[in-house]
């Protein structure tokens, strides 16, 4: 079975926010919620770097672990989905998530937050009909054999989505093509000292 993952090649991301717009449009996400965001670090400095972030569909996802109602669950293909009927709006997933993926439509007194919403990897969610599914969760492109629209529409192909193995292969080829001495994320002369396995901000 495939394990679905997102990966953003920070070397290629040009902060166009096309992924954000594509996601909003594909899923008709409700006002005030933005499932995908583009983060820019060191804006305006020589080391400026941008990266597109949404739900990372973690293995051993913290949101699933802390949810009191089993709203969140992981499919066999690694996609983390949520069941809006079970959500009580406690906000625990928001506390736990390292990427700020879960969001709530409200933030009112007595913990009235409404139902949580987050990226579904364009795989919809539990519902009785196609219409209900679209209204609650947005598009189910995976069901139609398509990848998430954010990645499909990425103008520089910075954002990759799909089977982890295939994405890794594409990225590996890019790294080889780029010809870095010490891997795709780094051209850091101190790379030996900073033995960080995954560093989205280091460019080379």
């Amino acid at each position: 079975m495939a394990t679905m993952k997102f990966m953003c090649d920070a070397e290629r991301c040009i902060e166009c926010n096309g992924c954000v717009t594509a996601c909003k449009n594909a899923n008709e996400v409700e006002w005030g919620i933005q499932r995908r965001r583009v983060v820019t670090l060191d804006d305006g400095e020589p080391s400026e770097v941008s990266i597109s972030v949404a739900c990372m569909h973690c293995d051993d996802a913290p949101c699933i672990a802390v949810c009191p109602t089993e709203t969140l669950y992981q499919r066999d293909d690694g996609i983390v989905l949520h069941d809006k009927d079970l959500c009580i709006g406690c906000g625990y997933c928001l506390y736990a998530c390292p990427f700020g993926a879960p969001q709530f439509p409200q933030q009112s007194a007595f913990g009235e937050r409404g139902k949580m919403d987050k990226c579904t990897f364009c795989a919809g969610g539990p519902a009785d009909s196609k219409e209900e599914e679209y209204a609650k969760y947005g598009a189910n492109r995976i069901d139609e054999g398509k990848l998430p629209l954010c990645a499909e529409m990425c103008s520089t192909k910075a954002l990759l989505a799909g089977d982890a193995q295939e994405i890794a292969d594409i990225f590996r080829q890019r790294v080889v093509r780029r010809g870095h001495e010490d891997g795709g994320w780094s051209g850091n002369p101190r790379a030996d000292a900073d033995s960080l396995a995954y560093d989205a901000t280091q460019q080379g």
Partner: protein
Amino acid sequence: MSIAMRDSWRLALTALLVALMLVALGQQARAQDATPGEANPGQEAAFAVPAVDADAWRQIRSGETDANFRDSRAESTYNLINASGETWRQIRDRWVSPFGAIAILGMLAVLLVFYLVVGRQRLDEPRTGRKLLRWPVLDRALHWSVASLFILLGLTGLLLLYGKALLRPVFGDGAWAGLMTGTKTLHNYLGPLFAIMLLLVLARFLRHNLPKRHDLEWLRQGGGMVGKGHPDAGFANAGEKLWYWLLASVGLVVVVSGLVLDFPNFDQARDTMQWANVIHALGALGLTAVALGHIYIGTIGTEGVLEGMTHGYVDESWARQHHNLWYEEVKGKTDEAAPEEEKSDAPSASRPPG
């Protein structure tokens, strides 16, 4: 003549510039030819941006954002990665949850063993039938308001923490969703009410619970369990005072942390919420465990105690045995306490004697 010379000089200069441009273009074209097919590490390294160093990376993981952080999401201060969420999850799931289960189940086990081994604390002397007013109606109303809110909040809180493991397998999706929605709504709306009632009851009972010298002796004798006879106690014994001050300290911490969690509309940072949640859960679970002890001592654990909180009056012999100093203070008022009227009011006049 001079004009022609100037023209030829210009022509030569132009020719030189064109030649230079052609050479430059040629070099560029050759460079571009080389790019697509093969790697050129030197070239890419020349325009690649410098690396973000380890300190910057640590700062990102801390969740804090600096002046040059941009997020395309509206009103988001959420950094690229915020590792504190995982820390909170580990504290909550690996420490708080087991602690609560051990504290509460452990207390239940201790109480059960205590009841089976030691049994009920009987009255030393038979009831005299003369009643003393212990808890006026306002005190009782306050006590039972706080008590029922405490029990409701405790049960809903336990459901939020353990319900998924214990009850989820029993329910279908619909019933489970309804139960948990009700649970969270009750917990969130009764919480502030509990805060108000707790403050009232603490204010009302303060005068009974000021520490006295004889309380130390009471504690040293374990409330009469160690040694012979009963240690001195005023209106409230040292055990009750401890429970009072536990509620006045830990109880207030639980209330304040609960209010922090209950009102996200004040834009508390996520880190604040995480710590509030841990403190709230630890405090509330601890209090729940101690409350079980309070409930045991106040009901089946001691003969003649519950009627004080249900009807307001206690028997003279109970007062002499458990609160001798208070008894000395009020024994003259026995006759004024109108026990007859109280007895006729009591719906459960046929309480089993002793």
